[in-house]
């Protein structure tokens, strides 16, 4: 059980204190860009520049797990870097660590309650009204209008419930006023050390009572999730439904490019395997007399479902970038949950739980074999 305490710090004071008192070498979080009206995931090395951080800004222009993979893949940091990650980003990072695409070494992982994000295209720094209604929804524990469908139906938005042992520091936001001092928890040893460095006495500090609206939001979200899955399953039913779901697809593969789990440098579906001699196009055109180009469109999605569905954390990036509005994330969330439940696997929940694709047990999947 994770206990939250009332601190007296705002988020900017907290960030400054982590720099000053914990002595971190860097910090990565969503931040205001120096130009334009957008926020981006940014790495800082000094507390003055880090004043531009807005870690809870409801936009995900890149999955933080993917960003941290880029940062740590070749070599981890030699000094500590604090990283802010939404629960789905932290789960993606954990999956990436399992497949050797990122390292936890010297990272101070900070996660927080996530009320969801808007499609990144729909939210800018100057959208005061949207941001206000979002803050309002966070305070009341409601789904804000306009957040992404997968976020509305996300039941894994509380780090303390859905990521075990990874987050060093957790910030509770739902049910609290946006300008209220932070409610913090320090579940790991590293977290506790940080608390000490920040001058927080965990034994004496005032405990935060769990807010009722958080569990109400869990219930609401569970309901939304059931409905979303039913809708998607209905649409995907039989080959006809499957083909129709991906019918608009232009084979740009953007969904795979932004997917934190799809890490392959050369995707199988972009490889020479799928570059054919001209003859095969005409042979495939064959009896039917026609062949749609680019070929292997549905195969690509089926392939991706089988390659990464097991690790899909339903972060929604794929759907945000789809130029033809296919509900990619909703499909992957629905199908992913089915495969994950077959193996009783929750992607990103436990860092030491091996990927089902990497383990062999003699008795698994017998119901399909027979």
């Amino acid at each position, binding site marked *: 059980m994770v206990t939250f305490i009332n601190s007296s710090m705002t988020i900017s004071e907290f960030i400054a204190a982590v720099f000053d008192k914990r002595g971190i070498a860097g910090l990565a979080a969503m931040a205001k860009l120096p*130009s334009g009206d957008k926020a981006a995931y940014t790495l800082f*090395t000094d507390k003055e520049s880090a004043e531009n951080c807005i870690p809870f800004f409801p936009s995900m222009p890149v999955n933080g797990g993917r960003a941290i993979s880029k940062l*740590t893949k070749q070599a981890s940091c030699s000094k500590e870097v604090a990283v802010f990650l939404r629960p789905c980003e932290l789960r993606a990072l954990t999956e990436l660590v399992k497949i050797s695409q990122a390292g936890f070494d010297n990272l101070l992982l900070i996660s927080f309650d996530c009320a969801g994000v808007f499609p990144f295209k729909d939210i800018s720094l100057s959208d005061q009204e949207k941001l206000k209604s979002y803050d309002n929804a966070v305070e009341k524990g409601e789904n804000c209008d306009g957040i992404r469908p997968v976020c509305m139906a996300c039941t894994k938005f509380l780090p303390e419930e859905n990521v075990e042992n990874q987050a060093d520091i957790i910030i509770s936001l739902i049910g609290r006023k946006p300008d209220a001092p932070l409610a913090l928890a320090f579940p790991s040893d590293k977290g506790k050390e940080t608390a000490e460095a920040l001058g927080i006495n965990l034994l004496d500090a005032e405990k935060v009572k769990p807010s009722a609206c958080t569990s109400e939001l869990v219930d609401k979200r569970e309901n939304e999730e059931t409905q979303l899955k039913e809708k998607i399953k209905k649409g995907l039913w039989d080959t006809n439904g499957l083909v129709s779901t991906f019918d608009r697809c232009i084979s*740009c593969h953007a969904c795979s490019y932004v997917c934190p789990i799809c890490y392959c*440098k050369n995707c199988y579906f972009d490889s020479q395997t799928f570059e054919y001699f001209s003859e095969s196009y*005409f042979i495939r055109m064959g009896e039917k007399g026609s062949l749609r180009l680019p070929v292997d469109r549905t195969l690509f999605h089926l392939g991706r479902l089988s390659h990464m569905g097991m690790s899909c954390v339903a972060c929604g990036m794929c759907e945000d970038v*789809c130029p033809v509005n296919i509900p990619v994330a909703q499909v992957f969330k629905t199908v992913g949950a089915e495969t994950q439940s077959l193996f009783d696997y929750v992607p990103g929940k436990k860092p030491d739980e091996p990927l089902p694709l990497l383990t062999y047990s003699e008795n698994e999947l017998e119901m399909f074999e027979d």
Partner: protein
Amino acid sequence: MDKGIWVEGSVNKGVMEFLKKLLDNNALDAVLMPCKNKTKDSYAWFLMGKEGVNEWAVPFPPVMTTQGATMVSYLTKKNGSWKKTGVLLRPCELRAVIELVKLKQVELANLVLISFDCPGVFSLKEYLAGNWQELDAAFEKSLISQTDFGQTEKSLSRNVCSICSNFTGKGADIEIGIIGADSKGFWLIPGSEKGKEIIKKADKEYNDYQSLESRAKLIEEKSAQRNDKREKTLDSFQQSVSGPENLMNILAACINCHNCSRVCPICFCRECYFDSRALGSGADEFLQRADRKKGLRLVPDLLLFHMGRMTHMSISCVSCGACEDACPADIPVSMLFSVAARDTKQIFDYEPGRNINEALPYSVFNFDELKEFETPYTKEYSQQA
């Protein structure tokens, strides 16, 4: 070849009839052209034999879902088209095909290229968000009357389309001439010996040769208008993106997804340099970069990617707009590249897709070129020394 064969009636029907005759008489084994997709709310490319052509084939779709040149590259890259295939391309797709031939990504043998007077297309997003029946009808109207669409309709054609000055199918084996036809029909204009032969094989009835003088005049006028509009629009756009501050403003929304390059017909590399290990580094190096710049956006090298793509492919940029259609952040990528391309093209007096025999500037070396750029640097260095 200043004559065309007049065909009376609807250009959509007439062109489909022409293609069917070519297939029936075995002048072609297949056609590669757009069709409605299965759910009928969008378009896709289909390779179709005699038996496969159906009522959903659409020679002139109102939207560019995938760039035709990329489809031609798929079909022919490895060993050329296996069978005689007619390909229906927009002018910008045709120009991209020619660039891809130069880059050895398309093999022209066994292909018959057919192109037409293109009024532009809707943006992909706008088309998918709108009512397709209405948008299809609006497009057809402007195709037949060859007017810029959108001015009286709710929707507008894409920005790059509205300033396109290469809007005819000139350069194809067969050009479908609609400008000057006064909504009454169209001309089949042979653009090569191959095209001439093919038209003959379709039907003896294609024999009403007419002079194209008045058409040429109309094209000249429209071209001049469009060139003027293009220059003015690009001038003001260039001003709005010039300098690091303005450029970064416009690229602030970019999420570095590289989708512009994935759908670009010219960006053919299997592994893009900007996705390669060359740009990776260890975390400490990233921290150093963040330190120097007072903040490093993750994933980094966003500006470098766009600048790199500008130097790698802008000389061949045909302003087809596919990049902008596929951009999830609505950045005016195709305008940005049209501006960059305008300068690179001018420096080398090169027009992509104009002539298949015109070598890519990158593939030729002239001892005396680019002196005007070199001199200031050499001067500076020699003075320092």
